[in-house]
């Protein structure tokens, strides 16, 4: 048997499963990890923790993993911060990964920080692109200050980053790809200072944002809960998913789950309508590959008009009710 020597450590993805199903973002990150690893000349290794995951482990290989480190144990069924961290940290110390990627999910908003602090390395949140530069260092792109900021972790390893679902495309599954599954054991001497007693899942209302063909997003320009209800009404007549900007969430008009953008969800609708929002990059990076984009804003100079196909300058609180009315007329014509 020949052993292959790699110049760089492996590219890692921490996969996430819910009730035995691997999340879409994990597959997407494996697809991207594959590209980075091929450039580096390094293997892709995926960590999957949960229970009864033989099938999913094979899918991860089909998506691009060379090795899946599989922790299969009832204690791992749900994300447990202490056990998950300990298992990942130990394996990272052994395998010395070059890069570690995790999806920006509720778990991915906590676990990578616990791991990064233990490994004393850098961690970049909510990236919208991850590319290797000429020195084979990972440029981790995030929007900021009206532009794009590139963050690097020049010395410490691994280079850790999170990205939301939809930032990278889903890879084609190739079931003939070779790969191996290596079992991981649950360490016994974990402190157990945190215990999940219950998980409650609520069915989301309306059209799910990430897969919606039409998205209506509202912003600060809605003005008040009444103005927001009009935007909700517009989403309803268009059978669209409702999205939002951060101020709309901060005002309490809508839930965090509807926020689109760098630190929210990434959507790829065919039609996007932005109402009463300024087109700040941190919001706009959450809209990927939309065919048609429309903005309604009462300020003709708003930067949002530089980023859409159709623009309407008007007070959305006046315009939206008229638009809803006219759409209804059109639909029943």
């Amino acid at each position, binding site marked *: 048997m020949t052993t292959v020597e790699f110049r760089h450590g492996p590219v890692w993805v921490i996969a996430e499963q819910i009730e035995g199903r691997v999340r879409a973002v994990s597959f997407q990150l494996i697809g991207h990890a594959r590209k980075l690893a091929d450039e580096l000349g390094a293997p892709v290794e995926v960590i999957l923790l949960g229970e009864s995951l033989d099938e999913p482990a094979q899918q991860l290989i089909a998506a691009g993993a060379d090795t899946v480190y599989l922790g299969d144990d009832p204690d791992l069924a749900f994300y447990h911060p202490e056990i998950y961290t300990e298992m990942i940290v130990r394996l990272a110390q052994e395998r010395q990964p070059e890069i570690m990627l995790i999806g920006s999910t*509720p778990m991915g908003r906590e676990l990578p920080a616990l791991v990064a602090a233990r490994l004393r390395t850098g961690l970049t949140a909510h990236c919208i692109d991850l590319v290797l530069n000429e020195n084979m260092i990972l440029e981790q792109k995030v929007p900021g200050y009206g*532009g794009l900021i590139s963050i690097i972790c020049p010395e410490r390893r691994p280079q850790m980053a999170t990205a939301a679902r939809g930032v990278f495309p889903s890879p084609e599954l190739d079931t003939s790809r070779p790969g191996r599954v290596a079992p991981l054991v649950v360490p016994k001497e974990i402190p157990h200072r945190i215990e999940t007693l219950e998980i*409650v899942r609520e069915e989301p209302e309306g059209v799910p944002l990430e897969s919606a063909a039409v998205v209506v997003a509202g912003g600060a320009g809605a003005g008040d809960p009444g103005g927001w209800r009009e935007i909700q009404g517009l989403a309803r007549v*268009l059978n669209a998913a409702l999205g939002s900007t951060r101020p709309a969430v*901060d005002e309490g008009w809508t839930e965090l789950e509807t926020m689109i953008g760098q630190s929210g969800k990434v959507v790829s609708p065919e039609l996007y309508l932005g109402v009463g929002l300024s087109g700040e990059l941190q919001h706009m990076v959450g809209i990927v590959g939309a*065919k*048609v984009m429309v903005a309604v804003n009462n300020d003709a100079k708003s930067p949002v008009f530089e*980023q859409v*196909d159709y623009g309407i300058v008007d007070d959305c609180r006046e315009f939206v009710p*008229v638009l809803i009315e006219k759409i209804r007329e059109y639909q029943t014509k």
Partner: protein
Amino acid sequence: MLKIVVCVKAVPDPEKADQIRIDPVSKALVRADVPLVLNPLDKNAMEAAVQLKEQFGAHVSVLSMGPPPAANVVKECLALGADQGILLSDRAFAGADAYATAYTLARGVEKIGSYDLILCGRASSDGSTEWVGPELATLLDTPIVTMVEEIIEYGDEWWKVKSGLDNGYRVVRVKLPAVLTVTRELNTPRTLSFSGIIKARRKQISQWGIDDLDIPEQAVGLKGSPTIVSEMTTQESTREVEMISGTREEMAERLIQKLADAGFLASS
């Protein structure tokens, strides 16, 4: 008595933060004179601390790392009901990423002494990494629950809290001392009262620098940060806008026609 540390960040006023831009030519930040305010979610963390103090009695310390003007934010927290205010401020602390921030805060917490609870906001409005709470907890070897939207049960040793998930929540039992990061669902922050402001005048803010914390310069600020900014660029849009004009009704009709032509609207 409960000992609580609340970590608060002074952030550029979110209403005016969009004035800080990348200059398209020099690619450097154009620093507009944006005032520093208390990070919105840290108001919820402060409110939680003050409510615990009212309910059970507690000693509340406020801890912030930031430039000297951040003292105003610490002062505001004293007026909201904190007992002790500490500003970690030193030139050497500047340019810290999440890790270096958490490291410096951890040393600050250790200097304050023992604690039962550390409260953070879920995210800051400017950095918004959500990393500082969990990294701080790790560096202090303390358990953490993030996205806490309700405290359900206060035991002597264990607390039960509700923590947000996408489409749902989990109920978690956590052993004190612990770090909790809080969401806006947790409470409604009170506004400053006149009597609070008067009382706060008598409270002192301590300012600690690198010598007070007894840590090496390589461990803090830009030098202690694993990550650095390598480049800033501006973005060009690839779309060409067509403005739709007319009366309100005409604009609505014209837009509908465009959408119908593109196949997004069907009449019955």
